[in-house]
Each structure stands twice: as C-alpha cells, then as structure tokens.
C-alpha cells in the first residue's frame, strides 16, 4: 500500500530523471524521453488504485491539515495523470514543429517532454490542497511551468505574444489571489479551509470583509478557469501557444481550477450574495463563450472560445454546488477536448489551423474525420456521448436549484453551440478539398484517439463508473 503524497514525489522524481537524462545522455533520441514519461505516469496511475485511505480531514493536524487524500482528490489525481499522458502523446506528434521552430538542433525537446511531467506533479498537489497556503504554492507550481510551456516555440511571434500575455495576466491573478487570502486570514485568523468554515459559524466576524476576500480569491481563480470577465487572455494565448500546451492548459489547468473553486467556495457559500455573484458570472461566461465562438474561422481560436463556454456550463454546476455534476462534466470535457486537439495537431501540420483547412478531411482521412466528428458532437452535447450526460447533470442541478435564468440561457447557448461545432463537421464532410493525399497517423496516436472515442461513447451510455468513483 502507498500513501497519497508519494504519488506526487514519484512524478516529481520522474520529471527530474528525464531532465537528468537529457543533460547527461545527449545522444538518446528525444522521443525516448516522452515514452519514459508516458510509461512512468502510467505506472503512477496504476499506483493510485493501491492507496491507503487517509484519515478524516476534520481533526487533521500537521501535514494532513494542508493535504487531503479524499475521493475527490484521488479522482482528480488520476484525471491529471491521464491528461498528462495524452498530452505527451500529442507532443510526440508535435515534436517536428518544435524542432523546426528551434532552428538549430533538437536540443530543447527534452525539456518539452519533461515540463508536462513536472506540471503534472503540480496539478496532483493542487487537487489535494485544503489550506490556502498549499493551494497558493501548488497553483503557482502549475502556473510557472505553464509560463515556460506556453512560450516554448519562442521564435514564433504569436507564441511570444501568448507567452507575454499569459505571464502578465498570470502574475496579476496571483496578486489577486494572495490579496484575497490575506483578507480572509485577517478576518478569520485561519488559512485552513476546514477551520475557516468553523470560524464563519462565529457571529462576530466581519462578513463584509470576508466577502471582499472571497471575491478577490474568485477573481484570482477566475483567471485560471477563464470565467468572464477574466477571459481576455484566453483566445490569444490558446491560439499562440504550441497546440499540445493549449490542450493541456484548457484541460489540466482548468480542471484543477474548478476543483480548487469547489473546495474554496464550500465555506464561502454561507456568505450573503456569493451565490448571486456566481450565477451572474456563470451567465456571462456561457453567453460570452458561445456568442463569441459563432464567427470564428480558426479552429484553435474556436476551441478557445468553446473552452470559455464550457467553463460557463461548469460554473452553472458550481453555482448550484453540485460536485458530481461538475466532476462528470470535467471528465467529459477532458475526453472530447483532448480528442479534438489531437486531430487538430495532426491536420494542422498538413494544412493549417483554419476551419477551411479541414475541407474534405473525410476524403483524406476517414479516421481523423470520424474522430473529429465524435469530438464535435460530444462538445455540442448530442446524446450517447459523454458531453450530453455532462450537460444533462448540469441542467438537472440548475433546475433542482430553481435557477431559471441559468436554464433559459443555457438552453439557448447550447443551440448556438451546435452551430459552431457543426461548422467543423460541414468542412470535413461536404466541402471539397484541394488536396486528396492521405494523412498519415502514427500507431500511438491512433490508439489514443480510438481509446478516447470509445470512452466518449461508453460514458455517454453508461456514466455510472465516474459517478461511483466519487463516492468511494
């Protein structure tokens, strides 16, 4: 049996090993590092099924007052590991682009494969954090690795712009987060979420000051999850960053943001006006994401806006305090987003990232077109795909809480979503293509995509495994 923190240590050591190998064995083909990373993370993923149960969190002391190994965190550790493995698979496909942009040799590819592993350790730590101190440290671990990853192909001006924007706004959000934590600490004298909850039971604390702190924390986390009005950086950064990093950013970083949000909000939902504020943010986010996605012609940018839209649906779940609905949606979002990015990476190297570059894909590669079709219909929310169950649970939660405005706006924006996701399907299936040569797909990518397609349909019919995993 293993205790939970050893998983993060194992991942960290794995990342170090890859970096060391790169430094001391320059002759090895860089792709080997990616395979080492995938194999190592897969081993850790298996390890998560042999954890010893942790002590209950309410009387925890010492290290365990900063760190929990509850079902939610274990679940999202697996989630982070799976995401990182899939991102590494995509990075192997993307390696030629990095090599080309580097100009000289393939010297930096080793870091390109090592950094996601280190980021993964950060993601896994973040989902276990139950104290503002550990939340802050782990989120920064994630963000700092992303600063490097986003601007990795730095000779490309768009990437550089993305890197600078992400750096500045990331720093700004960190500042908000710290300031908020300070206010909350000032009011309650605690940083541990459990004890903050207990402190709020005291009628003498200053509710307004606590609310101010909570709003600042919300602003800080709003940057991470791309909620309106803190979404301005998203389209440019997503479009400019190397595509696997965009995928990683939009799944990994967003998922842990939501886990932290769920944990942090639990005590603060007792505060007045907090719920109304969340409902407002959720409304704005679904509206902005979906409406702004309508006119997009660049697929990567479209996916950026779609990720804002999905953040909106997730926020509906958060505003209704429905953890299982949010979790299921995140899992569905992981599967379908990574699938669409995986196809995008392969097609973009052949033609480009515009939607028109997908014209006639069904003729050139029926497999890729079918994978994209499944990803798009799942993102749109067609039944028998995981995306539909995600929306179903979210809408159920909203109706259960009598959030009429959220339901009405949600339904209208879902219809918007069909328009822009089906645009991609139209390009693939009924626009003529200028080229007819086949697109090669490597065996590993084909395997990963097939697994994702099967998972999307399987969860679309039988969602029980995810719902059960949270209960244990």
């Amino acid at each position, binding site marked *: 049996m293993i205790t939970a923190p050893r998983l993060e240590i194992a991942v960290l050591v794995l990342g170090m090993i890859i970096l060391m190998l790169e430094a001391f064995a320059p002759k090895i083909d860089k792709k080997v590092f990616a395979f080492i990373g995938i194999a190592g993370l897969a081993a850790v993923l298996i390890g998560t099924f042999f954890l010893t149960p942790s002590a209950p969190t309410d009387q925890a002391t010492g290290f365990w007052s900063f760190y929990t190994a509850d079902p939610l965190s274990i679940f999202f550790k697996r989630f982070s590991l799976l995401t990182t493995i899939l991102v590494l698979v995509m990075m192997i496909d993307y390696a030629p682009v990095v090599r080309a942009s580097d100009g000289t040799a393939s010297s930096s590819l080793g870091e390109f494969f090592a950094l996601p592993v280190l980021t993964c350790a950060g993601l896994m730590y973040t989902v276990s954090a139950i104290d503002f101190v550990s939340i802050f440290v782990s989120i920064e671990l994630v963000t700092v690795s992303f600063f490097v990853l986003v601007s990795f192909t730095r000779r490309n001006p768009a990437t550089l712009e993305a890197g600078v924007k992400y750096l500045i706004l990331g720093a700004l959000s960190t500042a908000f987060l710290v300031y908020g934590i300070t206010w909350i600490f000032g009011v309650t004298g605690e940083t541990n979420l459990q004890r903050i909850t207990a402190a709020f039971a005291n009628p003498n604390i200053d509710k307004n000051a606590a609310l101010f702190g909570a709003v600042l924390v919300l602003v800080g986390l709003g940057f991470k999850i791309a909620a309106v009005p803190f979404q301005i950086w998203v389209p440019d950064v997503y479009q400019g960053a190397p595509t696997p990093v965009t995928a990683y950013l939009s799944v990994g970083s967003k998922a842990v943001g939501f886990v932290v949000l769920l944990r942090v909000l639990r005590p603060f939902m007792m505060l007045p006006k907090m719920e109304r504020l969340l409902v407002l943010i959720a409304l704005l986010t679904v509206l902005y994401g979906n409406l702004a996605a309508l006119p997009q012609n660049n697929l990567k940018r479209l996916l950026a806006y779609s990720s804002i839209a999905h953040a909106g649906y997730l926020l509906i779940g958060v505003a209704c305090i429905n953890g299982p609905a949010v979790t299921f949606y995140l899992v569905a979002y992981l599967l379908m987003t990574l699938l669409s990015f995986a196809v995008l990476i392969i097609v973009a190297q052949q033609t480009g990232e515009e939607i028109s570059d997908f014209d006639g894909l*069904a003729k050139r590669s029926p497999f890729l077109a079918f994978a994209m*079709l499944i990803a798009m*219909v799942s993102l*749109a929310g*067609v*039944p*028998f795909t995981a995306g*539909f169950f995600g929306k*179903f649970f979210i*809408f*159920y939660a909203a*109706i*259960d809480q009598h959030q009429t405005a959220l*339901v009405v706006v949600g*339904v*209208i924006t*879902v*219809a918007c979503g*069909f*328009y822009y996701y*089906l645009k991609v*399907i*139209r390009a693939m*299936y*009924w626009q003529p293509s200028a080229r007819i040569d086949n697109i090669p797909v490597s065996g590993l990518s084909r395997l990963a995509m097939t697994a994702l397609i099967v998972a999307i349909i399987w969860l679309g*019919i*039988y*969602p*029980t495994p995810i*719902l059960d995993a949270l209960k244990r």
Partner: protein
Amino acid sequence: MCFVGKQLFNLVHFPLMLLFLVLCPIVAAILILAGAPARLTALLAAGANLLVAVLAFSFFEWWEHGFQFVSSFLVSADWRIHFALGLDGLSLVLVLLAVIVTLAAVWFTGKIDNYEQAFYACLLFISSGALGAFASLDLFFFYAFHELALIPTFLLIGIWGTGNRSAAAWKITIYLTLGSFIVLIGLILLYQSVPVASRSFDIRALQEAAVTHQIAPEAQRNIYLLLLLGFGILVSLFPFHTWAPEAYASAPAPAAMLHAGVIKKFGLYGLLRLAIPLLPEGAHYWAHLLVVLLLGNIIYIGLVTIAQKRLDWMLGYSSVMHMGYIFLGIASGNILGTTGAAGLMFAHGLSIALLFAIAGEVRSRTGTLAFDDLGGLAKVMPFAGLAFGFAAFAAIGLPGFANFAAEIMIFFGAFQNGWDMSRFHIFQVATALALWGVVISAVYMLRAYRKTFMGTMAERWTNIVDLRPALRVPITLLIGVLIWYGFFPNTFVRIISPAFRNYLTATK
C-alpha cells in the same frame, strides 16, 4: 394466435427481439462503415426489422393491459435510469410505421455518388433513433434515441441535399436542437415534480404516480407548456414550422421520407405518451392555446401550401399542415380523438413517405420539381402517376384510405369535447374550420397531381422511363398498408385505444 405459434414465441424470447429491433440498424450501420456492401446490408437489416415488427404485431395481445415484450437493463442506480424497452398499442403502431418507411426509404435510395456507405449508415441511424424512441420505456432513452437522428439528418441534407442545402441543414439542426433541449428541461422538471421517494425516469412508474395524483396541478401546467413548446418545435407546430418545408425540399428523398414520415412523429408521440397520461390538468389548461395554434397549421399553412410553385416545397408544407389534424386529436382529450391522432400519425407517415419517394424519382429524372416545367408525366411514367394518385387521395383523406379512417375519428372526437346542445364551444368551431382543411388539401394535392402528371408534356421529357419494377415493391407495400388500415381500421384501433383507457374517458 395458435398454440404452436405461442410456444415458438416463447422460445425466441421476445423481449430480446425488441432489443434486436433497436440495435439491428445500428449494427448494420457500423458494419457498412466498416466495409460491408452498403445497399445489401441496409436492405437486409431493414427487412429483418420489418419481419420482427410484424411478428411483434401478430403476437401482441391487445386485450391485455400495459406494456408487452418488456426488457430492462440498469444504467444508473442513483438516477434510476434504465435502458427499458417495451411496447403498448400506441408505440407498436409507430414501430410498425418506422420499419415500413425505413425499408421503403432504403429501397428508394438510388445511386449515391460520394460516400455511399455513409448515406446508408445515416439512414439506418435515423431509423434506429426512431425505433429506440418509440420503444423506450425510460424518459432518458426516449429522449436520447430521438437525438440520435439529429446528426445523420444534418449530414444527409448537407452532403447529399439539393438547392440551398447548407442553410436548410443548419436551420433544421438548430431548430430541432432548441426544441429538444426545451423538451429535456420539461422532462427533468417532470422527473422532479414527483415526490422524491417515487422519482424515476421510468414511464410506467411516472404513470403510476400520475394515477395517484402525485403531480401538482401547478407543476403540470408549467411542464405541459414546456413540452408543448419543445415537442411543438419538433413537430412543426405553427408558428415554429419554418424549418420543415425548407429541410424537406432540400433533403434527398429517402431522408425526407424518414424524417417527415417517422422522426417528426416523435413529438406527437411524446405528447400522447407523456402529456395525456401524466399532465391531464396541463393539457386541459392549455387546450385553447393549442387549438388556436393548430388552426394556424390547418388554415394558414394550408393556404400557404396552395401557393407553392414547386412539388417538393408543396409536399413539405402539406406535411406541416397535416400535423394540425393530429394536434386536434391530441387536444380533443378523449379516447376517440387521441386514437384517431395516433392512427393519423401512422397513416400520414406512410402517405407522405410515398409522396416524397415519387417526388424524388421525378426529380432524379427531370432535374426539376417546379410545376411550370412539369406536366403530362403520366404518359411516360404511368406507374409513378398511379402511385402518386393513390398517395394524394390518401393524403386528402378519401374514404378507403387510412387517413380517412383516422381523420374521421379525430373530427368526431374533437367535436365531442365540451359539446353542449345549447351552444358551440371553441372545439366545435375549431372542428368546423378544420373540416375546411380537407377542402384545402384537396385543392393543393389535386393541383399538384394535375400539374405534374396530367396536361401536356414538354418535348424534353419524352425519353423519361417509368419506375423500375423493383421499386414497385415498396410502393405496393406502402399503398397496401394504407388501404388495409382504411378498410379494416379496427385491427389498429383496437390495439391503440387501450393505451389511453386509464387516463381518458370515451367522450369528454
């Protein structure tokens, strides 16, 4: 059925045959996509399904109460979602409609130039969606199966459509998405309107709850309005009908047959299956609104149909118009009217499929469906002309065809609602107006027949050939069933009407 037959029936274990019915088209579609010969596989799957449905029809014990051939698989214990299949008279008739039209649609598929496999796969997916929706006893799968048809329809119109196909494909998809998500909200509200202990997505459990008056009247009104709006969009209830004519005019003939004939009946089936038994208070409360809207379908759309200058648009509008009659039957709120509505769903599905099939054949030969270009085609296509004549007469509602047998029940049923010897109620006024719809449909159908098949023929059509003998099989099948229902309506009526017996009275 005889004793030996009964034993045979037990041997094959009928519950699994419903599963076969729903999954057979999906499996066939996957096989086709994997490389099996497209047309042959599709025909075999559709034929096998017809066989199973006919078996189900002949072994159905209409004198028994409740759902038959039931099979159930647990999907989520927390949410009480089951993958449950079963048939009562109402769904049995619609399943029969679905398999007949599927076979005809597959049979009528001509040569497809690109992505032939995908075309057949899309048709089969639509068929499976319809069958699954009609056979599901669980609200979740009832809803989900209908949506299975959405993307194939989008692709069918978009890839293989004619005219302004892109716009038509978007319009139908966005409209139907909006409608079905409104339905979804209504269904979730319905689920939550029942006390926590008896919450379930199972239609049987919900009916149980409704019989014991567990759904509050206030909730019933709200949910009924949502369902009427959502299902109304799916069925092209006036004024949410604009997607339908455009989509059917652009769609390839087999897609229009399946969609107008079968999938569009889903919304009506939903109202009959959910609104009538579960929300009687809501149905009563909003009956007047529904009556006004359905008169929009019958009178306004009827007049619009007369004004059409192309055969495909005219057929599209006519299918919108005929929905008005079915809504009238649903609004009547008595067994006579609702049974008539269910019967007309069956009859209309067959007749509109036949009309679209022949229109598609005409288009494939002439390349146009504008009335001004056509005329006199019966000279070169006598069999097509005959079949179109039959279908047109059926659609108008001439005695001897299924449509007449069903429409007359609707008119009697609606007239009886709120009937007071001293004065006319809104229902009597509506029925009187709706009867004029028969005249309207006679005008446009006969006009279409005259302009297409009668009169002088243009020189350039002299080389056109009639339908291949093979295509006469599905036509004969469709006409045969229409006439069979027309002459022996009781074979169908006796199995449909028990579905409403627990919830409605014979007259009011």
